[in-house]
């Protein structure tokens, strides 16, 4: 019933994460209804992002300039590196405005049950930053590694492995605090969160 090109567009939208068939149809009909310049703006934005965005050669964040604006910013402390799993984690942490160091994006985490080892991630590049200051942002030696991995078993396994490697190199290691969320209620927290909160209590 529908022309092939429209069916193809619906299929492409439906392949996007979180988009079902009905939503894909709605998006396709929005494209059909919109003016040609409007529709081409979307098409060009997709083409542009695929052409110009790459990984930063220092931290593996997504960027259109190399090194990325964070690694190139001389107001930031390049001696403190916060390690995250994915670029979206970096964005979330950066939005807090609380961190003034630089990042390293692993592009995944260790998962021994799935056979994902250090070679599948950007670990060698991170270790090179620790070993050779010239490969770190602005040639600065790394003093501290902050492990900002997800607090699940795979994230913790990755953190333990990286901590061991950093300690061998004499680099100070810390990890993000864990426990009760601000605005949350003790009554609704699970046992693991409460145990973390008790173990990580702070002197007042």
């Amino acid at each position, binding site marked *: 019933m529908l022309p092939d090109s429209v069916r193809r567009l619906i299929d492409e939208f439906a392949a996007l994460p979180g988009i079902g068939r009905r939503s894909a149809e709605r998006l396709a009909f929005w494209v059909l209804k919109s003016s040609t310049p409007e529709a081409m703006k979307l098409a060009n934005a997709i083409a542009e992002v695929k052409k110009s965005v790459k990984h930063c050669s220092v931290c593996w964040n997504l960027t259109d300039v190399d090194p990325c604006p964070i690694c190139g910013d001389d107001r930031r402390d390049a001696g403190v590196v916060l390690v995250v799993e994915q670029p979206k984690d970096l964005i979330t942490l950066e939005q807090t405005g609380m961190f003034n160091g630089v990042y390293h994006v692993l592009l995944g985490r260790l998962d*021994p*049950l799935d*056979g994902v080892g250090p070679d599948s991630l950007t670990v060698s590049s991170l270790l090179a930053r620790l070993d050779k200051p010239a490969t770190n942002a602005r040639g600065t030696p790394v003093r501290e590694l902050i492990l900002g991995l997800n607090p*699940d078993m*795979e994230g*913790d*396994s990755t953190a333990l492995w990286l901590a061991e490697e950093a300690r061998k190199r004499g680099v100070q290691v810390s990890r993000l605090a864990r426990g009760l969320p601000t605005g949350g209620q003790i009554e609704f927290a*699970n046992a693991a969160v409460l145990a973390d909160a008790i173990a990580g209590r702070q002197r007042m």
Partner: protein
Amino acid sequence: MPHLSDEAICVRHWDFSETSQTVSLFCRAGGMLRGLAKGAKRVGGRFSGGIDLLTLGQVVAITKPGRDLATLTDWTLTRTWRSLRSDLAANQAAYYLVDLVQRSLEQADPHPELFDALVEALDRIEAGHAAEATLVFQWRLLDELGYAPRLDPTVGTGTSVHFSADGGGTVAEERPNAWKVRRTTVAFLADVMSSADAAAVALAADRETLTRANRLLAAYVRHVLGTQPTTMRLLFPNL
């Protein structure tokens, strides 16, 4: 639709969508259960914020005949082992144990004694005895699956004994592919296996004997599984 409620340890999990998970749970009464936990990762939901690997909880699920995947309706986290998240040796030992479980057991094949052995092993790892826990659990798994090796430290002569994985344990004479193992290692393993308190025997052993016995059992497990899992390589790098 039958409901089940059981004590379970998560031995594998995968992201199904941004908020949902599929999980493999080792249930005490029901054995392995694969299930879908819709919205599991939402904070404050019915799944304690997500089902994490190597945690113990109470699961409620709906199973349908002929379907491999159950629908999980509730998960109450009851137990975590903190050292698995703070000590690399403990973490790698625990990964190895759950990997053995998820590779060895079929769906809906109950092994309550093995479940208890896994909980005991994780407790022992938590107490700082990862090597002893690994040894006893490897033995308990092999025994439960009917692959317990025959261990006779009196066969043959000299300080070493021939161990044939194909032959199911120690053998009197040399065979192709048989391993040469120390008589003391076999004697120690035989003690562990015949003791009512295997953990106490393992705890009393010297480090070298314990390491040798663990490696022998791991090599035998590798033979039984027909593959060497990554988790085994991490724990026994030169096996």
